[in-house]
């Protein structure tokens, strides 16, 4: 069994798993963990789309 993911799907999964762990290990209360995990995930997504569009526009 193998997985053939697109760049976006792979980056999305990577962001999701990483955000969960970063949220859990860095903060002290459940509310802070949830907020920080969501923040990290949004940052990943912003970087993904931002850099993606920058490459698209830069490539011409």
């Amino acid at each position, binding site marked *: 069994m193998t997985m053939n993911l697109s760049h976006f799907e792979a980056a999305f999964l*990577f962001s999701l*798993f*990483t955000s969960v762990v970063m949220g859990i290990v860095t903060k002290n209360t459940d509310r802070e963990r949830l907020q920080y995990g969501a923040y990290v995930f949004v940052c990943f997504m912003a970087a993904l789309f931002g850099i993606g569009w920058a490459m698209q526009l830069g490539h011409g």
Partner: protein
Amino acid sequence: MAKENEEKEKQPAPSIGAWVPAVALGWLIPGGGHLLLKRTGRGVLLGVAIGGMFVCGLLMRGAMFQPQSGDLLTTLINTGGFIGDLCSGILYLLTSWLGYAQPDMAGAVHDYGTKFLVTAGLLNLLAMVDVFEIAAKRKD
């Protein structure tokens, strides 16, 4: 703020018996250290996230690093990658022992898989540090 930092620095080092079993279990089974310290929810979430990432990496046919010597960059990448893989604990051991480790192949998906495998180990390393802080009573 400075006083808080000073107080933190003055905390005595925790006894080895207080943190070694939890950190060792956290290495062997991702999330296991948190479960041992009765942080069930966090332990399960960590296990699912780290285990999920590792399994995704395997399904993408990512390669496992082997320590190699040579030029500095080769040594750094391969030894660092090997340490990252090793941090996944039983996931890495089972993959190696049961022969699921893939050879390095060209391709974007395989490359993502390799990064997933290493990152799963590095995330488990972060989880182990968290377990240490909990066991040392520096964190709830």
